[in-house]
């Protein structure tokens, strides 16, 4: 310890601390409302569906919580670099401070509480429908409250198709869903792992071969959305997209009935509707395993 300078160090230290605190509080008081009120409503992925709005809410909360953290570290570092520099050839040592237990205690305490709050918040959001847009396996905890429309998403290299079991198992290349109704997506793959990403709906679910991965969504109003593959699936991964549209309920029923009738001759040739489809030697695996290869050993 350097006892002679200790007291003055401490006093000037307190002044520095107060200054940093004030700058930080002012900046936070300006930036946090900006993030919440100005930026927040425009944060992705938008408000087309219940789930997208939920994700936007999470982004808003996390962004607002993150703002003071970023500001604190940046304020501190910039303050230190401006005020506590030394230049020149005579090198002077700083005060001998090896620890300040109170600081460390506060820091650990505050970060721990923040992190635990975020984990509780995230869990609540996940279980409370806002996480329903993410793939939740074959038997998800979340279940639709009312009647829902099942739609199957079949991914294969390199396109998505969509089957509607309640409309005779018809298969389409564009995804049409009604507004105001709970939709259950049953996502599966015929070959490698893909990921069904309906961006504006806030839905993302991996398409695994042999697995039925379920996600829910409820769209608020009619509108268009993009479907993309979000898991690298080979050559044309970047081009694996599809169009999607949310329609009014009446429009949807009319479209579905019309399409079902139109596609009936094709639907007849398709494999029977099932939650998963086992690829055989004629599938995307090609001749890799050979025709004699036992599919069920």
């Amino acid at each position, binding site marked *: 310890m*350097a006892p002679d300078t200790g007291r003055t160090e401490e006093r000037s230290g307190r002044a520095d601390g107060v200054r940093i605190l004030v700058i930080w509080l002012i900046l936070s008081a300006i930036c946090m409302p900006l993030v919440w009120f100005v930026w927040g409503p425009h944060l992705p992925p938008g408000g087309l569906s219940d*789930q997208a709005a939920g*994700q936007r809410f999470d982004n808003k909360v*996390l962004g607002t919580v993150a703002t003071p*953290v*970023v500001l604190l*570290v*940046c304020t501190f*570092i910039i303050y*230190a*670099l401006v005020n506590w*520099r030394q230049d020149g*050839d005579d*090198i002077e040592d*700083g*005060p*001998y401070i*090896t*620890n*300040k237990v109170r600081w460390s205690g506060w820091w*650990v305490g505050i*970060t*721990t509480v923040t992190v*635990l709050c*975020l*984990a509780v*918040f*995230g*869990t609540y959001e*996940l279980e409370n429908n806002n*996480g329903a*847009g*993410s*793939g939740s*396996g074959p038997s998800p*905890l979340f279940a639709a409250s009312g009647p829902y429309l099942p739609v199957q998403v079949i991914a294969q290299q390199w396109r998505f198709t969509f089957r509607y079991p309640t409309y005779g198992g018809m298969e389409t290349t564009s995804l049409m869903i009604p507004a105001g109704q709970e939709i259950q997506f049953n996502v599966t793959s015929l*070959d*490698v*792992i893909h990921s069904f990403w309906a961006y504006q709906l*806030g839905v993302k*679910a991996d398409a*695994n071969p042999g*697995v039925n991965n*379920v996600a829910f969504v409820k769209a608020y109003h009619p509108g268009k959305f*993009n479907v993309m593959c*979000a*898991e*690298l*699936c*080979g*050559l*044309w*991964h*970047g081009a694996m997209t599809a169009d999607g549209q949310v329609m009014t309920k009446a429009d949807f029923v009319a479209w579905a009935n019309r399409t079902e009738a139109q596609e009936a001759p094709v639907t007849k040739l398709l494999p029977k509707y099932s939650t998963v489809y086992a690829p055989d030697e004629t599938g995307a695996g090609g001749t*890799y395993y*050979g025709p*004699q*290869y036992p*599919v069920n*050993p």
Partner: protein
Amino acid sequence: MAIDMSNAIGVEVPASEQVPGAPGELPPDRRRGFQLPALFGPGLLRAGVFAVLGYLLGHWFGNLLASGYQQVTNSGDNNTSIILGYLGGTIGWVAGIGVLAYPLFKMTGKEELLAPQRRAGTSRYFKYTLDHKVVGIQYMVGMIVYFLTAGLLALAVRTELLSPTSHVFGPGVYIEIVGEHGTMMMMMMTSVVVGPFGNYLVPLMIGAKRMAFPRLEALSFWLTPAAYVILLSSLWLGGFPTGWTGYATLSIQAGQGMDAYVVAFGVMAVSIILAGFNIIVTVINLRAPGLTWGRLPVFVWGVMTTSFLMVLATPVLFGGLYMLAMDRTVQTSFFTDTLGGSSYLWENLFWFFGHPEVYILALPGFAIVLEMLPVFCRKPIFAQKVAIAGMVGVSSLSFFVWQHHLFDSGINPDMRPLFMLTTELISIPTGFIFLVGMGTLWKARIRLTVPMMFCMGFFFNFLLGGISGVFLSDVPADTTAHGSFFVMAHFHYTIMGGLLFAFFGGLYYWLPKMTGRTMNQRLGKWNFITMFVFFNSTFLPLFAVGELGQPRRVFEYAKRLQTLNDWVSISAFLLGFAILLFVINLVWSMIIKPVATVENPWHSRGLEWQTTSPPPPGNFERIPIVLASPYEYGNPEALPVSDLLSPGRAPVAANGANTPTGQATTAGPDTERTS
């Protein structure tokens, strides 16, 4: 604490072999018996010839074994021959470089036939040399080459993404480039700090003459060029379409280029395990007397926690790669759903390795920055135990978070809250590092040298990288961010903005120690400023690009995102020039116009600076006795860090300034005026 010094002074090393770092004590050349022609002596030429022969032998054997397999005749792809070829090539390479000579001679009781490898001069850097300082330099040059290769591939990726619809490459070539860039960076850069700085500096910092296992150390380096060449050779076999994650079943479906991924990653895995194992044993056993755990430099703590991750996590990857190789060659079905396997198995195995892996790529950054901060703040490190707890905490927790990569995959959906919790808990020990950094800056006397600039850049970049990680740990927010450019920006902030900024800072800081030559500081400042600006200008917009709906690894994207993507691409090219500045500085200052460094240019108290630069063959004139912590800046009562006299001069003063006359202070590179 009892410290076993027997290894440190080389008691157990037979006199007939090369005592690493102590050629002066070697007996004269006792080579007798047969004399090999120079061509067949161990070295790069023989290694190259043996590698080719090994490849051909393995390839032939693979054809012999598997050419009649059903899937080989059906597809025309004999993966067995490629994998055996690569393995044969690797064995040939290490045999040719001279790795196997000692074990073989030892086994047959003929070890006295081995000529003592008395080596000096440049040629030892191209040979199987057991001196940890030579291996450190080899690693450093190797890592810079690997980094630049993968960096050029990144520029190719950004070139393609200049336009959403018109293409420079076809989709196949593009996917190959993406995979090569990602795999090269993630797999080779694992050793970017532990290899060069770990091997070079750990013995110096702990007061040892060498690493515990010099042969394993040299082998761990010589495996890296093999992995590098094998990985690049994938391009001749059509590349691999899976990126660095190698997800099954795409990896089983893929062509022969995938075999290169499997073998290269496997070879690198062995290298990583050996390097980590060596560091752990060295730090535990070879510390100088008086170097208690409390006095152990934070850098060594960081490298050791990293090494534990390497040793514990990498075998899981190796197991996964082995299964993948079996699935691809002898038709097992570990990852084939319809045959009793599961593609989830690879995802689990890969990320069980993969998440510790990303901390293997973060912890050394913490270690370097926390080691340099006290020197340039002229203050003790703040709350050293908290810093160590932070690094140990991060490395322990990293084994419990891997399924956050699989939030949308449908695997264990009910476990997501748990993985969300563990992932967010990692913010706490990571926060320790920021506490220690800020506490050390508090009321400091900061000298804003080039390494210090890189430290400050590290804190800013890692802050953004860490904060964006919180968004990814929250399942609803992750639903949009997962698999998008947001993730990609996140891990570039932590790894490139974190680890590589720390690595570059470390190079500016320790190159004078390692080479005796000093980097040009003015060019260094420009190197930092351009790198910092263009790094942020490249990767900050990518957070937005991801959140606005651009998936990773695509070669076509929405037209509305073209402006952002063009901005990013142009920034990336400028970032490339910023790194070119570093290369120019490196070549200029090290080779073309070398400027000799003064002793201890940064006035550090660190033990590694209490010897000449570069250190003599035995590192120190004798094993030092450590008397105090290396961070006692500002403590007038502190003892010197060791009982060594600083090279040829007065005892080291408490503040690390080893020249009372001040001649070092006027000539140090950090005090060079830039105006």
